[in-house]
């Protein structure tokens, strides 16, 4: 298996039973591959099933059909390989900051002694800039600090992939910016593979290597994969001066405003297994997955 398919979503479908014996299809036959060390953002409107995709990746939810392969193994249920950062931070309120992170560490390395666990936890509390607040309870922290603890807890178990479900959507703009900087710094320096759900276009452009566009539900599909044309070394303060910035931004916003609603996947040309990859910029060059050979998302295709 190639490095392109570190994580591979293979034809997952999710249906919920609806009234009268019918069923509602949230999404059908989704295919997506992620590379090791890649930061992928999934963007789409509320209710299109983004969170369901993430929950399936996390193992918290099961697809009606299809499978998810992580590092050559099909996943069945949650795993310490896949850390989740919840939108609502989901800290245990009766534990301190250190207690929350240490709980995760102790879950991963069960034979470790208490000092080992705490030292490891402190390292990650330090990484997210919360040194000195170890003994505080979540209730004493601001929203941004709580989410930092959530990030430290996820990083502390050194997962293969970090799954983030709109982690900053409940924060004010200033805090959100700082936390995005931190996440970017940490992820680029550690080579962490990240799958993040968002509905904030600028957040996606700033953080992601690839931005996956999802149409509105029900029966949502992955319409496009946008390769971020901005250089890997980018800074928040001058990102908007990059010649490609508005090209990407307009492309995604156009999608969210109109195409996400009107997109029809039943046209003969659209192949759900080979979601078109676009690289908006100077000349909106469009290539399809599979054309380059190394982006074939269907290793088991007949």
């Amino acid at each position, binding site marked *: 298996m190639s490095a392109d398919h570190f994580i591979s979503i293979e034809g997952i479908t999710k249906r919920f039973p609806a009234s009268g014996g019918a069923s509602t299809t949230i999404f059908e036959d989704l295919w997506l591959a992620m590379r090791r060390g890649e930061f992928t953002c999934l963007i789409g409107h509320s209710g299109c099933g983004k969170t369901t995709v993430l929950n399936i990746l*996390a*193992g*918290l939810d099961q697809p009606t059909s299809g499978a998810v392969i992580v590092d050559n193994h099909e996943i069945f*249920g*949650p*795993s*310490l390989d*896949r*850390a*989740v950062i*919840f939108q*609502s931070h*989901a800290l*245990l*309120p*009766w534990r301190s900051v250190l207690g929350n992170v240490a*709980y*995760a560490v102790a*879950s*991963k390395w069960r034979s470790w002694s208490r000092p080992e666990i705490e030292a490891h936890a402190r390292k990650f509390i330090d990484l997210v800039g919360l040194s000195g607040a170890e003994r505080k*309870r*979540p*209730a004493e922290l601001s929203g941004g600090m709580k989410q930092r603890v959530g990030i430290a807890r996820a990083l502390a*178990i050194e997962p293969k992939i970090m799954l983030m479900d709109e982690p900053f959507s409940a924060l004010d703009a200033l805090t959100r910016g700082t936390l995005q900087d931190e996440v970017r710094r940490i992820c680029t320096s550690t080579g962490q593979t990240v799958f993040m759900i968002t509905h904030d276009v600028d957040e996606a452009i700033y953080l992601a290597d690839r931005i996956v566009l999802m149409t509105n539900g029900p029966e949502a599909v992955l319409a496009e994969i946008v390769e971020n044309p901005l250089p890997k070394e980018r800074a928040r303060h001058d990102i908007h001066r990059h010649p490609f910035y508005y090209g990407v931004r307009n492309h995604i916003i156009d999608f969210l405003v109109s195409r996400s609603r009107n997109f029809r996947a039943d046209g003969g040309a659209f192949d759900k297994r080979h979601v078109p990859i676009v690289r908006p910029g100077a000349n909106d060059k469009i290539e399809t997955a599979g054309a380059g050979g190394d982006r074939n998302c269907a290793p088991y295709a007949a």
Partner: protein
Amino acid sequence: MAASLALRSAVLSVALFAGFILVWHLATNTHQTVQAMDPEYAKLMGMTVTQGKSAMPGPLDVATKIWDHLKDPFYDRGSNDKGLGIQLAYSIARVMVGYLIAVAVAIPVGFLIGMSPLLSRALDPFIQILKPISPLAWMPLALYTIKDSSLSAIFVIFICSLWPTLINTAFGVASVRREWLNVARTLEVGVFRRAFTIILPAAAPTILTGMRISIGIAWLVIVAAEMLVGGTGIGYFVWNEWNNLSITNVIAAILVIGVVGMAFDQILARLTRLVTFPE
């Protein structure tokens, strides 16, 4: 003026108390028409012992009586004349034994019900039918099967303190926030570790609230239970003093029952505050 709220409420409390004592004193201090009453009728009305005074003791009589009890709470002059302290100790011991057994049963069973929708539905009809039964209705059955009055009283305490703790535990366990359970799932936490490190602390405030309701009911029921089974205990004391027509002792006992009940409630309230977490 906010700071003086405590002071003002205290002043009002004292004033209300003083007013009540004064009215009580005036109402019982009047030399009523007892002398004019037919002695036979007065006897029927339980007034002969008072020699012209009301049979209802005044606050001063009660205060003196309570002082007597406090000076010597643990005397024992035979089965019908034991100190108030001894009687209280019997009642508290029965309540504690019945209550602790009930808690030891209710919390694990409540956990199972809370964690298993199957058990929850299967046991629900039994709980719904057993819960509203007055605990004293179990007394004849308990006396017949256990054949020991003291154990029967403990059984009645057990059965009445079972339900609030059981129901609150089941509710607290069932309503643990999904996201905390998801945290445990993503960290691959095992069943037992999850029960003790996530569910128990999350449900603890609800469980303790159930235990607080339970101890309140247990203390309500013990008085009635001891009136029925007799022998020892504060409930028996009240009934015995009624038979002695010592209203003073009855009032003294009522006050003591209230104080002990309040103490139980406060202890559980403290414990609840200890396990409550701010969100």
